[in-house]
């Protein structure tokens, strides 16, 4: 009984903190209260980060693979990116996922995201299971493997779905630092 109460309280507090994420029409959106019962995946992106952009087909593929079990959101933490420019970007890169602007970095903080691209996976209880790189495709800027050999995002979603623990709850990736943004 006690643990259930605590979990509810936690959710209420989080919901309050998330008021600042906005959809592309400027409405506050809480990705955690939508699609209850699903795992939540936030993917942090930035238009002027080429590594972010090159991941578009990968993100589209994984989100399609888990469309029943996980709710995917693209999150744009850069205040200078307008809804119009984000809409164009979504079209250019063939995304059909909902996008959020996070000008106050509420989701960035919750996900402890540091760079773009970075993924954060929350289980059905809205606990952060993993945040970090999508896979090990990039070694450093301008140096990528022909194909990734580890698949952290996929493993994290599996872990969130099954409750099995992950070896690492965070793996640093290659990308552009969110803290450099205004």
């Amino acid at each position, binding site marked *: 009984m006690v643990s259930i109460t605590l979990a509810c309280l936690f959710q209420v507090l989080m919901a309050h903190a998330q008021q600042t994420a906005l959809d592309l029409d400027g409405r506050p959106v809480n990705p955690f209260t939508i699609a209850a019962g699903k795992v939540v995946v936030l993917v942090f992106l930035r238009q002027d980060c*080429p590594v972010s952009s090159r991941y*578009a087909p*990968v993100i589209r593929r994984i989100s399609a693979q888990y469309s029943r079990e996980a709710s995917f959101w693209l999150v744009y933490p850069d205040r200078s990116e307008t809804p119009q420019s984000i809409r164009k970007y979504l079209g250019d890169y063939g995304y059909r996922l909902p996008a959020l602007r996070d000008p106050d970095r509420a989701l960035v903080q919750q996900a402890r995201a540091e760079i773009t691209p970075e993924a954060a996976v929350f289980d059905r209880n809205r606990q952060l299971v993993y945040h970090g790189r999508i896979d090990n495709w990039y070694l450093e800027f*301008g140096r990528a*493997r022909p194909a990734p050999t580890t698949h952290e995002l996929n493993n994290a979603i599996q872990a969130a779905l099954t409750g099995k623990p992950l070896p690492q709850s965070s793996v640093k990736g290659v990308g552009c*630092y969110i803290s*450099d943004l205004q």
Partner: protein
Amino acid sequence: MNSWWRAWMRWTLVLAAAAGMGSVFSRANPRPREQARQTAPQVTFNRDIAPIIFGACASCHQPGEAGPFPLLTYEEVKRHARQIAEVTRARTMPPWLPEPQELRLADEMRLADAQIRTIQEWAEDGSVEGDPADLPPPPRPAEGWRLGKPDLILTAERPLVLAPTGTDTYWNFIFHVPITETRWVKAVEIHPGDKRYVHHANILVDRSRSSRHKEAEPGAGFGGMEIRIESQVFDPDSHMLFWKPGTVPSVEPDGMALRLDKGTDLILNTHMQPSGKTEIIQPSIGLYFTSKPATKFPMLLQLEDDAKLNIPPEQRNFVVTDEFTLPTDVELLAIYPHAHYLGKDIQAFATLPDGSKKTLIHILHWNLSWQAVYRYAQPVLLPKGTTIALRYVYDNSDENPLNPNHPPVRVKAGNRSSDEMCHLWLQVLPVNYDRAQGDPRMRLQEALARHDVANDPRDFEAHYNLAAMEQAKGRLDDATKEYEAALQLRPGDAVANNAMGAALLAAGRPEKAVPYLSQALKTRPDYLEAHYNLGTAYSAESDFEDAAQQLHLVLQLQPDDADAEANLGSALAEMGRFPEAKSHFERALQINPNHSLAKENLEELQRQMSDR
């Protein structure tokens, strides 16, 4: 048979055997101003960082250039401050692979240690903007053609649609050069399409349209990382026409212009990376002409030892070495090392006759993505007897993250990106030579061909090139022996069969030439040169009916071929079909008013017609 009839002969050599030629036209990146450590406590953008960024980064990091984001203002730089600190510390940016060396390279894009420290400090201390009065002017925007409006702009007939995802793409665009007479090119400016996605591009000069048959349909272009260009006569490649991000074209020194003849194709070999969305890549090339013909003739030497590339899986340090001793004095102008994804540590050095040893290039962390042609700041004199050595180390283990095979497999030499290569191209200018001894480039080419045959008796191209050298020198017996050796390795090869046929023709043995030429056409039915040579062989055997048929085929494939018109006229004249012969001689002279054979034969024909 009338004695007045003569035919012109042509044959085919393969001299430039691989891709990846790069250019003399590389980048004049202004060297960043040296940063003295300031006594002032705080590093600021305006005073300390802007001069470094504007000098070393902004040439690419500006709209329309290769850099994925601009770095022209404080706000733009601050948005990437930690990233810039990281990539400069790791020396991944600016992209410059060679280690510092005594023989200075031109346009070096290497930051000084002090500059890197300054950037770290700035990013750590909050990326402060500073006093606006300290800000230097931003670099001039690099728009349009850097060298002004080109004399001739060629645009790829059909763009490449680059898929959003997948591995790196290697694509070749063929540009037909619409010139009606020989022109001299003093500069080439490559606009690779979209500089953000094209990683490098280089032009190969195809003097005999030998690549067109690789296109699925005309104008379509063709895939492939490494390509082979055939050449008609001894006319070795001379220039490395290379583009990589940051390259700004430069004008060739006086006397070193590139010759372009009518009918020449330029092949743009490009390396692209998918961006995440579909991209349309349509390159163009700007040509700048000069009225001054070439008086200096550099050539490209290719050292390779692909035969030794047989790398077992999990081998972490597979070493390949090769040595070549110069048969004549040269000035080394530029160098272009080339390996694929297993290449790790790449070195070339020269041991001079006095025993002194000089590093020509040393790349400790090879990265194909940033491969480049490096020009020397000053020409490097390498006297006759100098030994040029290469030492390439390959890592075929799983620890090499760029290994295209996971798990690793045995890797040999080849043209696919998952194969390996061990190539070193040198642009050299022969100097101090005795004209009486002939073209020094031929001596270099022959020495290289002998070296390659000795390295690998199973090297088809080495035998072929050696044969071509013997043939060019008129040593036809030696030439046919080497062609035979080449054909034992690849019996069906169209180019080698054609060349063997041409050598036998030149040796006055047309009856022996016919089977080789027929084999060449069996392999490649639209092989213009083989039709031409077969026509010549039939003529020499007085089989003028078949000769005329072959020459008609040549003219179907290449309607403006003056030699074929002239020879067809000759064959028809032999058969007594004078009016037809006359029209073909006239057509030859229409194409080339100075065609001496057509002129002589036409005059002779008119005499004979008036005698009747």
